[in-house]
């Protein structure tokens, strides 16, 4: 299993608060890797480190074997993309224009808008289903549409590796599935390596090819969902007693939390 992107013996800290020590993580090439874990377990911090928003105080993030902080930012941005948790759409910007900003690492002073830029932006908007919104102001879109536009911008960057920080937060269930289906398609059809932080264990188990389970800033388990998502591990990581059944749709593990309040309909005492 080869990994272009690795975190090696990292200490991750904000100011004086240390989140992770000696954290080592491999992202398998061409995988759809999902990082799971309870709130404040350090999964977003890990993603910030991998996307070079947070510099490890010791250890390093290696991209193709070289320290990510030693390479020019623009070069890294051609290989490694990120959909951040929060981005601000500039006042009055339109969809196509926002998506076209994803081309920045490929552009220059005299190469402001090549035919390739144009084609890639059109492709990215088509892939995310926002092509017919091209001329609409981003501010007028719904949350689900807006997230697809941001994803289109990240796609336009054309990076073989794409990191997604909680891409489904603030979306309703239908839009969550829509975004995840889209990610799965990008992974399967375009062969991109994806790394996402997700909150929903069942969604993680359904879409991921590789899981990284974290607790208290440390990796507890890694591997395919079938081996990672077990009743024992969910209890250990989330402190949640549960049963694991097969997802009737996909056959992937499905977490069913144990019923602790026996007042549910149909369960009369």
């Amino acid at each position, binding site marked *: 299993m080869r990994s272009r992107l690795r975190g090696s013996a990292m200490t991750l800290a904000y100011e004086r608060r240390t989140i992770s020590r000696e954290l080592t993580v491999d992202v398998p090439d061409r995988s759809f890797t999902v990082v799971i874990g309870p709130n404040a377990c350090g999964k977003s911090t890990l993603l910030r480190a991998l*996307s070079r*928003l947070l510099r490890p105080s010791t250890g390093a993030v290696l991209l193709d074997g070289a320290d990510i902080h030693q390479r020019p930012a623009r070069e890294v941005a051609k290989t490694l993309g990120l959909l951040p948790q*929060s981005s601000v759409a500039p006042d009055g910007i339109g969809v196509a224009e926002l998506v076209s900003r994803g081309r920045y690492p490929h552009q220059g002073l005299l190469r402001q808008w090549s035919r390739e830029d144009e084609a890639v932006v059109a492709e990215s908007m088509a892939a995310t289903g926002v092509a017919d919104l091209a001329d609409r102001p981003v501010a007028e879109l719904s949350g689900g549409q807006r997230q697809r536009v941001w994803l289109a911008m990240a796609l336009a960057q054309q990076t073989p590796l794409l990191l997604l920080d909680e891409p489904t937060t603030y979306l309703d269930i239908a839009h969550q599935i829509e975004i995840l289906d889209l990610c799965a398609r990008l992974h399967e059809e375009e062969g991109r390596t994806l790394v996402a932080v997700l909150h929903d264990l069942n969604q993680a188990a359904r879409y991921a090819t590789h899981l990284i389970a974290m607790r208290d800033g440390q990796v507890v388990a890694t591997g395919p969902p079938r081996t990672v998502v077990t009743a024992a591990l969910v209890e250990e990581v989330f402190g949640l007693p549960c049963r694991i059944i097969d997802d009737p749709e996909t056959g992937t593990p499905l977490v069913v939390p144990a019923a602790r309040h026996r007042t549910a309909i149909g369960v009369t005492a």
Partner: protein
Amino acid sequence: MIVVRTPGGISLRLRPRALAVGLTCALLTLAVGVLALGSGDYPMSAADVLRTLTGGGTPAEEFIVHELRLPRLVTAIAVGAALALAGAVFQTLVRNPLGSPDLLGFTQGAATGALVVIVIGGTSTMLSGAAAVSGFATGLLVYVIAWRRGVHGYRLVLAGIGVAAILTGINGWLLTRAPLMDAARAVLWLTGSLDGRGWIHALPVLIALALLGPAVLAGAGPALRLMEMGDDSASALGVPVERLRLALLGAAVLLVSLASAAAGPVNFVALTAPHLARRLTRAPGPNLLPSALLGALLLVVADQTAQRVIPGHQLPVGVVTGLIGGGYLIWLLTAERRAGRL
């Protein structure tokens, strides 16, 4: 949006509307400039002015245009452009439409240096130098105070407001210490005035604009647009956010300091011009070049107004920009409220 492509792989993207706005501003500035060069105690026609500018004037005309009126005009253009460019950079960097050098304390800093020179009694060259140096030093101070593993917009604004408050206090104290004549001179300087400005005032700003202008516009413009979307997004797209912010902040503070040194802390140009430019071009983003051109036009027009509005009496240009800028902001507020956006 127009795209120009050459076979050599060069591609440029132009916005017709922004181009038209910029061009109109430049032409209007030139037109008002010719008018300004022809008006005064010795009136000249536009044709006479153009003849003199191209080297065909009488010695008297030469003297009046080249030594008396042109330096003032050039100072107005350069100061207006420098303030507006810096204002557009500040507003984008702190992601706050009110992010102007006044809010961030840089103009108060420049004023402190100028007031010290006025109180201890120095030449006007010393005054300009002191204003430039102390303005720049204030910029450094605000950055250092706001720094905490990177500088965030709101932290920069808070640090700026704090420093501005302290400096305003110090400036007030310096004013009360000055003898009456010096205090009057100081207040005139603090208002912002282009009266009696010569080449020595215009040149530093011009040189700074010539060096920093292209660097900011072409070198950092596209990256600055990305920084509007937040540090994380810009960084993900390959912008070295913290380094660029420091460089842009340094360039903008330098422009403001030199502009203040030349004409005093002229009110509201840095705040108003970028807003106006954005409304006119209808383009998202910092609109750096249209802002700079509009700033130049604003200040030239304001200076002409200041010289003519009360016959026989010149107002300091800062009074006019304050009235225009303040009036514009209030109009903007009512317009936005009527449109239900505020």
